[in-house]
């Protein structure tokens, strides 16, 4: 279903398989997946539970290596890389956003956001702080820099996590059920943020089991049993901001 895209491919999967050996059985989590994701796309990956979404995202995030096939991130083949090479790659090219935020407890927003830069020699502490503040401002938390993670709401925590994913200016943002723990309203607020990032040109891959979210992305990949069943370009992207405005007002606002 691919249409021509003039942008460069940030991600290219070539017949990627991932088998797990559990006892004597082989679990085929990915049975040969191939696609390209171009710079500036907002891709949702959908599928039922157990369809291989997380496994796929782990490949894309260089957290795992394919059993066979090749994965090019920003043109660089990843499969043969050592563990520490992959760690460096994650540090430079990837921004993760998790379902349960994964913020450091008892740590301020700005320190949480600085975390990836702690592992980057090119940043000194002043540059690190500046970049973290910029990222927090970008997600609308410029006034919450020194709030600790446990003093924030779920939506705020997820924004901090998004700022942390943005801080190293990655090639691609990878989100696994990023709205899974949030109520409808907050989900839409986060979705608005993702759409803004998309408009600014960020490449986003957003794994979700919620079909509704696909309406807000530019492309949707549907997985079943470790294989791609559908890959559609969304020509009629809905505005999350409008959807948010249409929601009934919360009682205590």
């Amino acid at each position, binding site marked *: 279903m691919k249409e021509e895209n003039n942008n460069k491919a940030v991600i290219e999967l070539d017949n990627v398989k991932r088998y797990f050996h559990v006892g004597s059985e082989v679990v085929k989590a990915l049975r040969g997946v191939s696609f390209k994701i171009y710079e500036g796309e907002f891709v949702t990956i959908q599928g039922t539970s157990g369809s291989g979404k997380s496994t796929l995202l782990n490949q894309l995030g260089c957290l795992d290596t394919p059993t066979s096939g090749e994965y090019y991130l920003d043109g660089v083949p990843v499969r043969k890389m050592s563990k520490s090479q992959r760690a*460096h790659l994650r540090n430079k090219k990837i921004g*993760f956003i998790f379902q349960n935020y994964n913020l450091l407890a008892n740590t301020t927003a700005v320190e949480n956001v600085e975390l990836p830069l*702690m592992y980057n020699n090119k940043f000194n502490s002043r540059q690190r702080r500046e970049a973290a503040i910029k990222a927090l401002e970008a997600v609308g938390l410029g006034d919450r820099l020194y709030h600790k993670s446990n003093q924030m709401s779920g939506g705020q925590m997820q924004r901090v996590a998004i700022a942390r994913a943005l801080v190293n200016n990655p090639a691609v943002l990878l989100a696994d059920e990023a709205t899974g723990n949030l109520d409808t309203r907050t989900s839409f607020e986060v979705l608005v943020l993702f759409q803004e990032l998309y408009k600014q040109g960020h490449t986003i891959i957003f794994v979700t089991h919620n079909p509704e979210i696909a309406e807000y992305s530019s492309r949707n990949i549907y997985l079943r049993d470790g294989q791609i069943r559908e890959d559609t370009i969304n020509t009629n992207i809905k505005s999350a901001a409008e959807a948010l405005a249409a929601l009934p007002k919360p009682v205590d606002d």
Partner: protein
Amino acid sequence: MNILNLFKVSLRAVASNKLRSFLSMLGIIIGVGAVITMMSIGQGSKASIREELAKQGTNLLTIRPGADMRGGVRRDPAQMQTLKPADYEAIMNEKKYVTYVSPEVTASGQVIYGNSNTTSSMYGESTDYLKIKQWDVQDGDNFTEEDVRKSAKVCIIGKTIVDELFNGADPIGKNIRFKSIPMKVIGVLKSKGYNSWGMDQDNVIIAPYTCVMKRISAQTYYGSIVCSAITEEMSDHAIEELTDILRRSHKIKEGGIDDFTIRSQAEMMETMSTTMDTVTMILGIAAGFSLLIAGIGIMNIMLVSVTERTKEIGLRMAVGATGLVISIQFLIESIFISLTGGIFGVLLGVGASSLLPKMGMPSIVPAWSIFLSFGVCVVIGILFGYIPARKAANMDPIDAIRHE
């Protein structure tokens, strides 16, 4: 990742769990404190014993009967009777490097005066004895050559005897009974107090050796002969000279083994020092075991900490920390804990050591024991931090981040 950042990350982790960090430090604090205190007791005792020995005169030489016992061979009783009056005479006639000589015969038993009695040691000596030991008579006089020649029943006594028997009365000219032999007190010794072994040096009676030999222990040989070399530096010459005199006097042939042993005070001090160093080491090792246990404690807590922070480790790995960086982070943490514990331990040890003398125990904190403690702490930190650090480094980021 630069090392400064690693330190920041590690120290933040320590700081965010202050109570736990402190508890794991506690073992190290106590361990290092114990090691330093033990070392300081050992070294302090050594110094005070040396001082004691030096006070007795560093030019002191002691001739004992029997061959050199440092090998630890069992002694033939006949060997204990080799020092005879003829030897004393020979020494007195030929000595050049020796100033004073005193044959020594000792006996211990009950001393009685009036209704009072006590137990004491009697030293039979020559008139030179007090000069050899640099000891003075406070009241009365030393006995004379005349007294020695006549085996006179006179004695000089220490302050303890005066206190025990005379109850404030003047002892000079009074007769005390030692093993039922009446002895006239002609002098009282200046008090020396207790030595570092805890022995009361004032509980003595000194009498002419001839008197003790003839009237009290009925023996014809000496227990030992004490001499003083003309100077400390001449001690070796004096020993050579005395050996030569005694070998001739005992008719020991070329190549034959001496049936006497001469020790200089310097040598005694050396022997003592070596012994005390051994004692120090044993005390140190015993205390060192508590450090080992403290190290295991740190490992234990670090392992718990690694497990507890699995998710955090997964996150750090996801955002780019390599296994190496993670392991260094935990190593820094364990080294920091053990080294900080070490610093407080040193303070504790130095504090305890400075209180000990107030309780009558000698103590000196050797500088090397402080450096040693720090070194040991770093080694403990690395050694016992290694397993937890490796456990953290080997985690799979996917599993770790999913960990609940």
